[in-house]
């Protein structure tokens, strides 16, 4: 199980995370980020890529 935490004060809704882990992150109709707070271990690589690619470095990943 992976916990995903996004600091919404840092998030500028650039949406780069969406390209790396589309099952976890998306931009809604208002172009704002929505995401799943928990994810299956199979998404680890994708979420790690999202953590790296976020211009604001707003994403945290916690492995449980």
């Amino acid at each position: 199980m992976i916990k995903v935490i996004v600091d919404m004060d840092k998030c500028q809704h650039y949406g780069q995370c969406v390209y790396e882990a589309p099952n976890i992150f998306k931009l809604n109709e208002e172009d704002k980020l929505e995401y799943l707070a928990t994810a299956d271990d199979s998404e680890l690589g994708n979420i790690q890529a999202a953590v790296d690619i976020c211009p604001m470095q707003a994403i945290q990943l916690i492995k449980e």
Partner: protein
Amino acid sequence: MGGLRTAESLRRTGFEGEITLLGAESEFPYNRPPLSKEYLLNPETKIHFNLNHDTLQSEFVLGDAAVRANLKEQTVSTEQGKTFTFDYLVAATGLRSRSLKFENNLLTKRFSLRTMSDTEKLRTAISSGMKVAILGAGFIGCELAATLTKLGCSVHVIAPEAIPLALALGEDFARVIQRNHEAQGVTFHMNTSVKDLIGEDDIRGVLLGDGTTIDCDILIEAVGSMTNVEWLADNNLDLSNGLLLDNALRAVTPKGSLPHVYGVGDIARFPYAHRQLPARRIEHWNIPIEMAKRVAKDICFQEGLDVADYSPTEAFCPLASFWSDQFNMHILSYGELHLATSTKLLDGDFDGEFVVGYYRDDELVGVAGLGMRGVLNTYRAEISI
């Protein structure tokens, strides 16, 4: 960042050998984009990357620059006299700020911005009400203009081109940026060169090419960068503009590529996968991240590890992306905009939010937007790389 991401990618791809990260700065890896923005405004801003030393298992040698590489002997020597031997070398030594040379080459009250230390010096020197002259109207110049205006400074930007950021984003986009800055009080002196600095012991102003002067309390040079590749000299590499690499990001010599020497990040000059154009460097933030992954795969492949879906002959072909935050403007782009021969407004309008397409003949080679994130992202997949 390039070095750190390479080490992380190596571990994630299964590399179990020794990794040493050698850095000139006395800091663990940190993120540079906030230096001209959040970190300049607020020293409490966290910019160091989260490091998991348990998974990374890498040695960090900080505050000690590489000064000489001997690729034949597979060694790197440092400023403080250490020598490291390697099986694989990844050069990710980045850029340093360019500094102009004037007849009256005063150094006091003169700043540039590349490192944490630069930002701290600048922050200490700034106070509200100060008059700041910024040389250069690129991304750093414009971001600094916005941040320093927020800090209460009166900012004058001086640059030789006609419109700030026109080279990066095209004229239409650039005019919007200039207008927004001017509405916040920034003064631009475009089509202007600086002839000399004014002052006796410290900078008091600048003398322009047309003979007029601009007073300032401090001067910031945001006039581009130099690649830190001198340490690679005398190894038959092409160091004319960064470090020349092949399609697999391996260093090139007249006798062929070196399978154990790579480049990552701002110094890495690499070929186009699908265009008959000279190899180029891309100074965008997402590039070292993509290069790190590729280099890690290539090293692991050479080590005989099982790297899924990887062939060393597949050309490295990343989609470049950059962003910039200036005042309430949030700019995002995809592609290599400089390839364009024409631009077209795709959506929105220049009075508000908009998306511009960048075309090379009929090919969409890039898109950039002011806001309108959702629309911008729909064009991303259409870009020819």
